[in-house]
């Protein structure tokens, strides 16, 4: 079997597994998986920038929230239906990521991390400042009756699951294709040795900007989908914590691998699920996992698998 065939099998197989899971697993886990798949899209967006391009952003919550509030506010304040609201959510994330990318890419390394962190923090504070419209930390609910897309009721378990699966599959396959394309490989080259990539004739600045925009838009799509499928938008999703989560998921699952994001979200979700039944300080687990990961397994789960066994994994 060629490497391309192996990749296709891996990707399509994952989707098939997720589809089948709906019919096999109990309702509780099916509900979890809906959430997991949407968050995995967020992780995929983050992985594109961090894992493949090598840029560590600490402000991705800004993009997630842009999508979430873009959709949420359109529906709540302007009474738009789901389809145009989705477009607005997506557009908000796209525009914001273009602006942030343009500004933040003038810095690098630690400064880039801090700049993205600052912009995201400013975004969170702005949401609070306009609390009359956004309801701040409390957030607002998007009515069940409104959450219908193309005739499908997204608030039902089935509708929600398969909408999440459709979204996940689309992003999963699109990004998998992208990272194996010349564009994706150039991003990896930039991650590995930017100066060398530049001196091979690649416009590294434009490449990085495109990477930020793609990453931010996918993250925004996840945010919009989250609001739509779970009927809620709140400022918590714009906090630093929600910028750290995708970093955590991607590191745990395997940065720079296609299935890493999904694996990371599943693992972390259930790790927190289990530990929050023991203590309210479940983020302690997150902290310990982060430290252990960076000490002993910086490649993450899928990354270690790729390093040791499945060298063909994209």
């Amino acid at each position, binding site marked *: 079997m060629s490497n391309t065939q192996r990749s296709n099998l891996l990707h399509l197989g994952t989707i098939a597994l997720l589809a089948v899971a709906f019919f096999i697993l109990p309702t509780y886990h099916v509900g979890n998986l809906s959430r997991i798949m949407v968050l995995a899209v967020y992780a995929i967006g983050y992985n594109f920038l961090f894992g493949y391009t090598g840029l*560590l952003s*600490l402000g991705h919550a800004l993009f997630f929230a842009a999508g979430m509030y873009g959709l949420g506010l359109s529906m709540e304040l302007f009474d738009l239906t789901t389809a145009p609201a989705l477009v607005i959510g997506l557009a908000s994330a796209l525009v914001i990521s273009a602006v942030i990318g343009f*500004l*933040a890419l*003038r*810095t690098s*390394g*630690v*400064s880039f*991390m*801090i*700049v993205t962190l*600052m*912009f995201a*923090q*400013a975004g969170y*504070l*702005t949401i*609070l*400042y306009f609390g009359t419209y956004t309801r701040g930390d409390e957030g607002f609910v998007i009515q069940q009756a409104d959450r219908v897309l193309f005739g499908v009721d997204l608030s039902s378990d089935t509708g929600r699951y398969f909408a999440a699966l459709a979204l996940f599959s689309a992003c999963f396959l699109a990004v998998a294709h992208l990272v194996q394309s010349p564009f994706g490989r150039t991003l990896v080259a930039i991650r590995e040795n930017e100066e060398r990539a530049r001196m091979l004739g690649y416009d590294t600045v434009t490449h990085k900007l495109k990477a930020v925009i793609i990453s931010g838009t996918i993250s925004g799509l996840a945010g919009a989908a989250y609001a739509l499928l779970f009927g809620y938008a709140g400022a918590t999703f714009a906090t630093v914590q929600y910028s*750290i989560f995708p*970093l955590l998921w991607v*590191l745990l699952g395997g940065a720079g691998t296609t299935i890493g994001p999904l694996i990371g979200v599943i693992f972390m979700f259930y790790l927190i699920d289990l530990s929050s039944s023991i*203590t*309210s*300080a*479940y*983020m*302690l687990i*997150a*902290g*310990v*996992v*982060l*430290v252990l*990961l*960076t*000490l002993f397994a*910086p490649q993450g789960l899928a990354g270690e698998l790729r390093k040791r066994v499945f060298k063909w994994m994209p």
Partner: protein
Amino acid sequence: MDFGPHLLLASLEGAVTAAILALTAMGLSIVFGVMRVVNVAHGEFYMLGAVIAWWVTSLIGGHPAIGFVLALGIAPLVVGFLAAAADKLILQKINYDPDRTIVATIGLLYIIQQTTLMTFGPDARPVQPPFNTRLALPWFEYGEGGFAMFWPWGLSITSYKLFVIVAAVAILTTLWLLITRSKIGLIMRATQLDSETALAFGVPVDRVYMWVFGLGAGLAAVGAVLVVPIQQAHYLMGHDPLLLAFITVIIGGLGSLPGTIIAAILIGMSDGIISVFFSPTLAKIIATLLVAMVLVFRPQGLLGRST
């Protein structure tokens, strides 16, 4: 209160903020200057200082001043020691690789914060200041017969807050003397300038880093101990000081200690003044965006060197 006295009050409150901020930001600045490490857990070391101060003072009975003085000595030492341990066990093992260090310190942040939540609890707990007399402050009014002093109602400051300002100045001066005059300071500066050459000259760079990391955390802890009689100890209290310290260090210029002090005064004072007259949220938004813009367009800040 009229504008004048109001401004004076805001300035004094700002001076207290600036004093604490200078200590906290200085810790962050030293660590970055010497080790090139961005310690995201810095705010949690700050919080630990306050929490330990609470433990010490609640264990020691009698006059609050005794407990406070003890806390002032114990908390920074304990926090410094913990930080040094974290450096040796974690940061040195990953060789201060920038990406992995950020991740490790984020992990450390959650570990410290959540452990505190589990032991100290989610409530805010007050600590008694060692002394707390209210001092009314005079203001001048131009009337017939020239300037006359009067004491506007509400224009006052506590003796403790004055103490905080004085203490911060004293500590920072000692630090300055340490860095510029002592052998330890010389070793620190040498390591900062060129760690490889320092190593070749027999400077134990690893150990210097451990001490510096501990010192940085200890400074933050001192700031927190000083502030806790004013503010109360809470497991989430490290979040805002972390952001503010970052802002200060960046505006002052990464790696420049004088820059950090100047920025701390500017930011502490303006934060105090702006928050009195405008919405604090708006003030924070402006400050955050300002930092981002400084990094984008003038990365060396006020006085720093380019990284």
